[in-house]
């Protein structure tokens, strides 16, 4: 016979047992905890640009356009080189004619609409070249805004565009704070630097890195502590572009100044 006391005891025990989640019975596994702490990924592509070394030859831009089939004479490019000339009166003059595709073979700064501004050598306080490309951000705003899932980030950190799926709405072109996206003149879909995904996937370096004779551009894997690029990023004074946007860019710059940021 069931007594009032044993009924109450058994019901409380049952309610208590039901309240315990299944995971409470799982044994503590330090190996699994460690694996979950890091995300366990082996590859995360990063880029390193040394602005001290860049001479503005534009071979990277030429190589990129050919390698990635971007129409050569269309005024769009996945990577480009900017020239900064800071004069002694504190003004900054910036140009990038044709994205620097043909190098910089004019002392005058291209100020648009076919006009050029001459700057005398003695007026220059500093002048340098800065290559730009997609930052393959950890929090890519261009991916968040895509309404159809045409742009996405691969496991190794590269942001790609699905040309079959892109509807050409242009949200990503507007969303990128670095202005690296544009429309491909032939496919009419969003286009961007993808670290030459076809090359890096088979162990090659990107076309721009191969074309650079001065070592101003380098690509590496930040998950590999022995990678020379990782060593520089972790031990030297590197900087990124527009970190205030919270995009966590993965293209690191040596010798960046406030005029560029």
């Amino acid at each position, binding site marked *: 016979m069931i007594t009032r006391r044993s009924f109450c005891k058994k019901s409380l025990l049952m309610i208590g047992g039901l309240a315990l989640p299944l995971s409470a019975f799982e044994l503590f596994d330090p190996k699994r905890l460690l694996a979950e702490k890091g995300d366990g990924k082996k590859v995360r592509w990063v880029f390193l640009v040394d602005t*001290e*070394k*860049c*001479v*503005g*030859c*534009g*071979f990277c831009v*030429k*190589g990129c356009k*050919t*390698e*990635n*089939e971007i129409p050569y004479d269309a005024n769009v490019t996945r990577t480009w080189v900017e020239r900064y*000339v800071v004069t002694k009166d504190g003004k900054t003059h910036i140009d990038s004619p044709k994205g620097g595709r*043909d*190098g*910089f*073979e004019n*002392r005058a700064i291209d100020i648009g609409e076919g006009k050029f501004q001459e700057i005398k*050598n003695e007026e*220059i306080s*500093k*002048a*340098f*070249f800065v290559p730009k490309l997609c930052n393959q951000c950890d*929090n*890519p705003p261009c*991916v*968040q805004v895509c309404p159809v*899932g*045409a*742009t*996405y*980030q*691969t*496991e190794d950190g590269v942001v*790609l565009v*699905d040309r*079959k*799926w892109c509807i050409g709405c242009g949200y990503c072109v507007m969303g990128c704070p670095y202005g690296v996206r544009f429309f491909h003149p032939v496919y009419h879909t969003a286009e961007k630097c*993808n670290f030459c*995904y*076809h*090359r890096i*996937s*088979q162990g*090659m*370096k990107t*076309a721009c890195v*191969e*074309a650079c*004779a*001065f*070592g*101003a551009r380098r690509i590496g894997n930040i998950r590999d502590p022995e990678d020379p690029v990782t060593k520089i990023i972790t031990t030297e004074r590197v900087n990124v572009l527009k970190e205030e946007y919270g995009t966590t860019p993965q293209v690191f710059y040596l010798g960046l100044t406030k005029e560029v940021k």
Partner: protein
Amino acid sequence: MKSHVWRPLYVVLFVVATILVVRKIVVPPDFGIGPRGYMYGWHRPSNEGEWQKVTVKYRTTEYCKKCHRDKYDEIKQSPHANIACENCHGPALAHPEDPKALNIDRTRELCARCHFRLEYPTSGRGKIRGIDPKTHNPGLECVTCHWPHDPRKEGHHDHAQKLL
């Protein structure tokens, strides 16, 4: 109940069914959430493979070295050692099958990419020896006097004679 009350419901059910069928046909079966999660990884994974299949055009100096070892050795001990073959010779693609011969860029503009003198004190460019193409032997190809594989050597004068 009379059928005119149910009729809109049938219409709605038909529309929903049509949308589901169209969705099944149009959306690729592999479309889904990738390893980067819903926000960054919502995509068609087979597209990654499509990007990996893009043809490599620049085969790098290592590829050229296999047949043109002499040229490779010459440029590697010269001040131009760091310049990739394909910067001037163009992308190798499937050379020597296709294209059979590469189109070498011997223009003055090519050399001037680095050797147009710019007095930039805080850039590597300022350290490169340069000229002003407007005043430095205008009209002549640089290779007439300078041998690009080793700029310390003289260029092809016979090439200049052909031009003159």
